[in-house]
Structure formats: structure tokens, C-alpha cells
């Protein structure tokens, strides 16, 4: 019951935000929602299937580049560019999954890292296509048959919010489905699941592709939001930030990683105004979380809640 109240309250607040926030602040919240989708997509792998990917930026970045390139070089047509971004992200994750899922644990981590860096290398090196480290500037926002133009901050915010709600709804359904429960079983004991009749590889593979698709959705939205994409959205640091968002919020909770993303985006915004060593701060946050809140922020709240009831 209290869960339903919390969800309703969150929806009301999110819908009402444009009334109270400045356009700059609303942009920040838009970014939080986009990174929230990205963090939740990684949570499906890390928190549910127990697969620690250190190359998840690959699917975010390749979708952003796909949409950016199509919008700039082919046509700024939402119905072409947006599905193409998802398709490429899903396709690349389907390909990379074939390699990465041959390994487990830290080996899986290393392979996903290496595969991600391959895409980063291509984006960095292939200047004629990708603009190299200058990235792709001036990516236009889509024109949709809506009474409001998405170039305006508020309509775009609602567009992202709708995508966020759809993503969290779909992911919540997936993790509570028989498929999602099986992922949790695989996380807990792979061998046992095989003996119980589960084709473990197939579950992991589908989870890997789904995670790539949702990361692609975030990448699509981000390039429209930012109007710019560079190789730094494909590289290991961005993948590691996503992992930190998941761990900070609480892996295996979906909502937690979305909250983690919001916290990281907010902190980065505040701190990078005062110092350049943002990565150092990320490292400190990671250490603090593992020491004091190994189950993340959501875990802390749950603990308090259970203690207050006991």
C-alpha cells in the first residue's frame, strides 16, 4: 500500500516539476531520467542476472551515434532514426553477447570492457564518419506530429518522462515475470538452474540483448537531449559511472539505480563547477558505498524501515 502511495507521489512530482523548475534545472532532471533508464538497463544484467558488465556504454553510445549520424547525414526523421538506434544497439548487444557470455565473473567483466573499447576506438579513430574526438555536433531534435515542438525544454522533458515511465514499467514487468525470476535463480546458482531444466545460456543471452535495447533507448534520448555525442559516451569511464549508479542506488531494485543516476548527475553538476577531479569523487563515492551501504541507498532505506517496524 505504502508502495502505491510512493509511486503516485513520485508521478505527481515528476509531472508537476516543469511548473516549479527553471529551464536549466528541468534540463538537469531530464538528464537524470535518461541516465536513470541507462542505469536500470544495466541493473537487469548486474542486479538480476548477476552479470557485471563493464562495457555497457557501448549500447548507449552506438545508439546515440546511430541517431546522430542518421539525423545529420540522412534525414531527421524520428520514425527512421529512433527505431534504427534501438535496432543497432540490440544488434550489437546480440553480437557482443555471443562473445561475452562465454565467460563468467571477472572474465565477463574484462570481455565486456574490451568489446566496449573496440567501439570507442572506432568512434575515436574514424574521423570522417564520427568526427573523432570532436564528436558529432548539432544533432537536431526530432519533429513529431505533436502540437508542441520537442526543441522546447518542457515538451521534451515530458517526452523523456513518458519513455522513462515506459522503461521502468516494462523492466518491472520483465523482472517479475517467470523469465525475470529465472534470471535471479541464475544469479544465485547457475548449476542448480540447469539441473532444474533451464537453458541458462539462453536466459542470459536474452537478458543481455534486452539490457542493450534499453541502454540504446537512453542513448537515443541523450543525443536528442544533448544535441551532441562524443567518444566519451562509449568509453570505460562512462560504463564505470553506470555501474556506480547501479551500486550506489542498490543493485537488483530497478528504482535504486534510477535514484543512483539522479544522485550522480546532481553531484557531477555541483562538483564539476568547483573542481576538475570529478573521477576522484566517483572513486570516493564507490569506496563509501561499499563500506557503509553495500546494498545501496535503497538497501539503507529498507534496513531503516525494517528496524523501525521490529
Amino acid at each position, binding site marked *: 500500500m505504502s508502495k502505491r502511495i510512493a509511486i503516485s507521489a513520485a508521478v505527481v512530482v515528476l509531472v508537476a516539476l516543469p511548473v516549479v523548475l527553471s529551464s536549466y534545472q528541468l534540463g538537469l532532471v531530464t538528464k537524470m531520467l535518461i541516465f536513470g533508464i541507462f542505469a536500470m538497463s544495466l541493473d537487469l544484467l548486474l542486479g538480476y542476472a548477476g552479470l557485471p558488465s563493464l562495457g555497457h556504454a557501448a549500447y548507449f553510445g552506438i545508439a546515440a551515434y546511430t541517431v546522430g549520424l542518421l539525423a545529420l547525414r540522412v534525414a531527421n526523421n524520428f520514425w527512421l532514426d529512433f527505431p534504427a538506434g534501438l535496432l543497432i544497439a540490440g544488434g550489437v548487444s546480440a553480437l557482443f553477447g555471443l562473445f561475452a557470455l562465454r565467460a563468467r565473473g571477472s572474465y565477463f567483466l574484462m570481455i565486456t570492457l574490451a568489446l566496449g573499447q573496440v567501439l570507442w576506438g572506432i568512434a575515436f579513430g574514424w574521423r570522417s564518419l564520427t568526427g573523432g574526438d570532436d564528436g558529432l555536433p548539432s544533432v537536431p531534435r526530432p519533429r513529431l506530429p505533436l502540437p508542441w515542438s520537442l526543441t522546447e525544454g518542457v515538451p521534451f522533458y515530458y517526452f523523456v518522462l513518458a519513455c522513462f515511465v515506459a522503461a521502468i514499467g516494462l523492466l518491472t514487468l520483465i523482472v517479475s515475470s517467470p523469465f525475470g*525470476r529465472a534470471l535471479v535463480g541464475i544469479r544465485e*546458482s547457475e548449476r542448480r538452474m540447469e539441473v*532444474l531444466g533451464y537453458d541458462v545460456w539462453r536466459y542470459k543471452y536474452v537478458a543481455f540483448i534486452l539490457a542493450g535495447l534499453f541502454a540504446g533507448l537512453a542513448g537515443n534520448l541523450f543525443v536528442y537531449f544533448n544535441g551532441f555525442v562524443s567518444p566519451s559516451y562509449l568509453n570505460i569511464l562512462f560504463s564505470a559511472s553506470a555501474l556506480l549508479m547501479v551500486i550506489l542506488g542498490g543493485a537488483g531494485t530497478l528504482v535504486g539505480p534510477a535514484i543512483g543516476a539522479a544522485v550522480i548527475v546532481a553531484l557531477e553538476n555541483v562538483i564539476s563547477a568547483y573542481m576538475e577531479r570529478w573521477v576522484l569523487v566517483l572513486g570516493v563515492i564507490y569506496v563509501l558505498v561499499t563500506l557503509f551501504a553495500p546494498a545501496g541507498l535503497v538497501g539503507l532505506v529498507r534496513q531503516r524501515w525494517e528496524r523501525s517496524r521490529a
Partner: protein
Amino acid sequence: MTALEIEALSHHFGGLTALSGVSLAVAPGERLAIIGPNGAGKTTLFNLVTGILRPSAGRIRLFGQDVTRLPTHRRAQLGLARTFQITTLFPRLTVLDSVLLAVQGLDPARFALHRRRDAYGHLRERAESLLADWGLADRATQVTRQLSYGEQRQVELVLALAGAPKVLLLDEPTAGLSPAETASVAEMIRRFSRDTTILLIEHDMDVALDLVDRVAVLFQGRVLAEGSKDKIKGDPEVAAIYLGTDDA
């Protein structure tokens, strides 16, 4: 027709021969104990039968179907279940969640991702009736790792039974249990459906002989003796292995 037929099965770990030329046939509904000292190859045999290991040579047939090359989950789909000597339960899941996973494993809905599992009422009904049948209903909402070791062994058995297996491999179900816990697990096994073919690895000879129809003795990767309980009890070679007489 035999339920499980093992033909000249061998397995090498590098240069070490764990099993060499083991042949066994088990009839439907039969209960066979596999006994033998440590390192005789008993667990290796189970790992080969369930497909966790691939044999170096030999064949495995389940109800006449050659399963030697089938992956583990396909063998489970054919009605093969097992328990593990070392508990590999789902430590952070509740008992009910664990049993639900076991029930779901052989259900057509196991791959569905477009509906909540709660929407599949028959899964929950089956899981709850299993827990009630085996006296674990009051443990349903407890997290598995918080159960006593004896209760964990019982959950292990319930997970293996969830798919109503035709052939069930039990790997030392009473290992590490107190005499009282051993008795309750043995009682549980005695209550298993007589339609289920059971292979039982057991260290405790008294427990083993009490539960089965027939015994096979494994020693250094080979079948040393096989036959009725009385025959095995009277076998001097078996006695030599177990009692360590000089003429072994």
C-alpha cells in the same frame, strides 16, 4: 524397458581415471544404492548422467533415448532430477521462491516475460502444495540461508521432486546430518512415489540398505559388485573395502 541405462561409461580428469567402463541398468521404479569409499567415482557418475560432465567414452540412455550428448537442461526436461552433496540452493531467496523456480523449470511458462509470475496461479498452487506435503509450509517465507542445515537438505529434496521426475539421483542426502535429521530425511525418501526411479549415493550403509532394492558397489572407478542387498552384505570383497581387512 530400462529407466536408466549406463553402458561402458568412462571419464578421465587429465591423466586420472575417475570412472572406467561402468555399466548399470535400472528398471522403472527401482531403487538402487551406489556405495563405495571416497574417490570411488560416485559423484562423477552422477555428474556424467546429468550432463554436468561429458564422458570420455560410453553411452547413457534415459528410457531408451540416448542422452549422452544432451545438455543438462534437456535431460531435466526428459524427467531427470538430482540433488547435490554440497548444498547449492538459492541462498538469498525464500523457500517458496526457490520451489517456485523448481516448479517453473519444467513449465511451458518458464520463458514468458510479458506477464508477472503471480499471474500463473498454477505455479504457486503447485509450489504451495509441495511445501505442505513435505511439512515445510511454515518455512515458505523464510530466506533459505537462514534455515537449519537439516531443513536445507529437505528443501533440496523438495526442489528435486518439484518436476515430478521419472529418474531421481540423490547424492548423499543425509551427509552431515544428526541421527534425528537423518531419520527424518530417510523417512521423506521412503515416502517418495514408487513410480520414481531412484539412484542413491549414501555413505551410511544402514540408511542405504534400508531405502533401496538393490546395491551397486563402486571401487576405484569400477563396479566391484552389484546385486540384492543380501548378496552385497555377504560379499567378502565389499566387506574388505568397508572393513579394511588385509586380503583386499
